[in-house]
């Protein structure tokens, strides 16, 4: 008997420990919606305020927001959660993930909710920037809705401009001016081969590393400014190795060589804050941090310099999707629908410095006042008019992005001729696309 009671005790202890691990008790009577996101810690207070506002207006719903690091970690966690039937109700997703999530049957088509009883009218849908709708879809079907938008602008140190004899009210407006300014702002005053100040942060990272895709994302505006595109509409061949791509990559190679750049660093914000960096590409998500971080010098944002063919910057953002495993899809939809309303978008934009997804927000009086008081934020909002989305790559998007990243790395760090680097990458990409056309079937 003693043996059995000992065994029972141990088993009971083990079970009790498992119970103790469960999350804090859910308030009775409320529908809980789990929301996975990757907002950085400086944005979380704004997120909590947004959620509080929603819960105030919808007392029967409780949002449980959970932070998941973005990038590889997010998609891996999503996969494992779908497989283990513990998927959240709502999650952030990137358009790259939609292919796999849709093929696994894990997420809802947004049309099920938009065309439903508590849906959105065509007029409301039309208010959303089309570029965001494109990112939120896969093969033409909408699978997510944008929560906020981001784009890219030029961050620059006005004091360093003055010191170099440049006019801070005239930031570089095109590629030639960008290179010229960057050169002027790169100094090695004691001639020891180490630069005390670098004029421009070129976002070069190892193509095989976690930031390879991020590097490509920042190169795309330059590709478009030269009149290029990444893939053809029929999805049969890539176009990034055309003359526009060569021009854009040559620009990057020039900057890399002229400024004698040499290290992979990721902390451009630290370098900028310590005034060792004069210019960088940056997005609105850092504005809340910069207000406190960059205190002792004059800095600002300017629109991205325009290219030979057009002005362009890239639009990004985070997209919310509802998982089929959700037990409360209606409540989840309520939250998403609430977020995209103009007044809530205005509230969110003003709190988080993310950009609104909704054109109507520009008409909200508080938002206009906020823009007048925050000229740096206004730069990003103004850019929304010509912010473009990348043409979606329906299949093998991740691999093709990797090929582009390899070309970028090889032309800059590897000093290979841009046309050659791009051609070698496009050969690999086109081979992948051709293989798919031959087998004629989507990945299982």
């Amino acid at each position, binding site marked *: 008997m003693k043996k059995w009671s000992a065994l029972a005790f141990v088993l009971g202890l083990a079970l009790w420990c498992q119970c103790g691990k469960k999350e804090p008790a859910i308030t009775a009577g409320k529908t809980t919606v789990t929301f996975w996101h990757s907002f950085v810690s400086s944005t979380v207070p704004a997120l909590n305020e947004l959620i509080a506002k929603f819960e105030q207006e919808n007392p029967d719903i409780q949002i449980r927001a959970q932070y998941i690091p973005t990038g*590889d970690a997010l998609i891996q966690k999503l996969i494992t959660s779908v*497989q283990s039937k513990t998927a959240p109700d709502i999650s952030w997703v990137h358009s790259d993930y939609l292919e796999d999530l849709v093929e696994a049957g894990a997420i809802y088509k947004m049309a099920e909710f938009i065309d439903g009883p508590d849906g959105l009218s065509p007029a409301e849908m039309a208010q959303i920037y089309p570029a965001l709708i494109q990112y939120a879809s896969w093969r033409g079907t909408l699978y997510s809705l944008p929560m906020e938008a981001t784009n890219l602008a030029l961050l620059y140190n006005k004091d360093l401009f003055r010191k170099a004899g440049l006019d801070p009210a005239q930031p570089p407006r095109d590629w030639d001016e960008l290179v010229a300014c960057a050169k002027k702002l790169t100094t090695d005053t004691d001639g020891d081969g180490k630069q005390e100040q670098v004029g421009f942060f070129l976002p070069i990272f190892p193509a*095989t590393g976690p930031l390879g895709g991020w590097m490509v994302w920042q190169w795309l505006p330059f590709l478009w400014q030269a009149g290029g595109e990444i893939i053809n509409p029929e999805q049969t061949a890539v176009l990034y190795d055309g003359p526009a791509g060569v021009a854009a990559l040559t620009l990057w190679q020039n900057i890399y060589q002229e400024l004698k750049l*040499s290290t992979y660093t990721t902390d451009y914000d630290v370098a900028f804050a310590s005034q060792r960096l004069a210019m960088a590409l940056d997005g609105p998500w850092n504005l809340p941090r910069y207000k406190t971080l960059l205190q002792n010098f004059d800095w600002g944002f300017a629109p991205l310099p325009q290219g030979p063919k057009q002005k362009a910057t890239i639009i990004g953002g985070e997209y919310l999707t509802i998982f089929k495993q959700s037990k409360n899809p209606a409540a989840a939809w309520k939250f998403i629908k609430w977020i995209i309303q103009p007044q809530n978008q205005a509230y969110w934009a003003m709190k988080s410095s993310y950009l609104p997804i909704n054109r109507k927000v520009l008409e909200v009086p508080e938002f206009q006042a906020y823009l007048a008081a925050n000229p740096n934020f206004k730069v990003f909002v103004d850019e929304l008019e010509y912010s473009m989305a990348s043409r979606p790559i329906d299949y093998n998007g991740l691999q093709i992005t990797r090929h582009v990243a390899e070309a970028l*790395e090889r032309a800059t*760090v*590897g000093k290979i001729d841009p046309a050659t680097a791009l051609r070698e990458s496009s050969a690999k990409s086109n081979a992948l696309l051709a293989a798919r056309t031959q087998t004629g079937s989507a*990945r299982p």
Partner: protein
Amino acid sequence: MAPSRTYTASARKKEGLSALLFLSPTLVIFSTFVLFPVLFSFYLSFHQWNMFSAQQAFVGLANYTRMFRDPEFWSVLKNTLIYTVGTVPLNMALSLLVAYLLNQKLAGKKFLRTAFFAPVIISPVAAAVIWRWMYDPNFGLVNYFLTLVGIKGPNWLNEPHSAMFALILMAVWKTLGFNMVLFSAGLQGIPDTYYEAAEIDGAGAWTKFWRITIPLLSPTTFFIMVMSIIGSFQAFDVVYVLTSGGPMGATKVLVFYLYEQAFKFFEMGYASAVAYFLFLLLIVLTLLQIRLMKSKI
């Protein structure tokens, strides 16, 4: 002792059953976390699966043929070989030297042994972060010490060749202590009488080392060589944090390639095929080593 007459077949069966019961926790854990993944992985290597879908598509040997046709696979294999050839001999030689020196009468032996072993216990990620800073061309310690001797250090992690060298150095530093401990144990297992006899015959230090120490260490050496080769073929964590496989894939080793295929591009079937290739390769290498060393152990 002769078995008692009451030790019947059923009693034996009962004993066997209770033995199984006692083993069951370990068997369950082993089956779930080791046996099942190994078998499932073998099954997957003949299929194509992106981890999301419920079904896996059977593709026969397509993953294996794709592997041998992919130029990236061969360059990755080459990188892994370079890495192994760079780390294993250097590691074994240095750890033997350190173990030998620390086996003599020396002050501060305990402290030195701890100091050499410390890198083994540091998390590889923490170590790689530290080394990444040390290798920084402008502010790093490595280049600083080089300038003190008048050498301008290279841009370690951004040039393809120096990156592999930098990785090898760090890897040797990380595992040296472990092999040193094994060699120490082996050295202490050699009876002093052999050395005394050699001294009587007038042998010098080098002769003693070459004719006594090395041969009598061969079981330890063999073990360390096999384990080191297996370990270096499986290197992943330090590569991931130190160089992310860069620059331009110069330090991309086999397991990194496998990881990418599995968790970046969601090609579980293909990654499983690569994993089984590695498994077979290591079996062949280990058998080769056993065959070569058979006479000498």
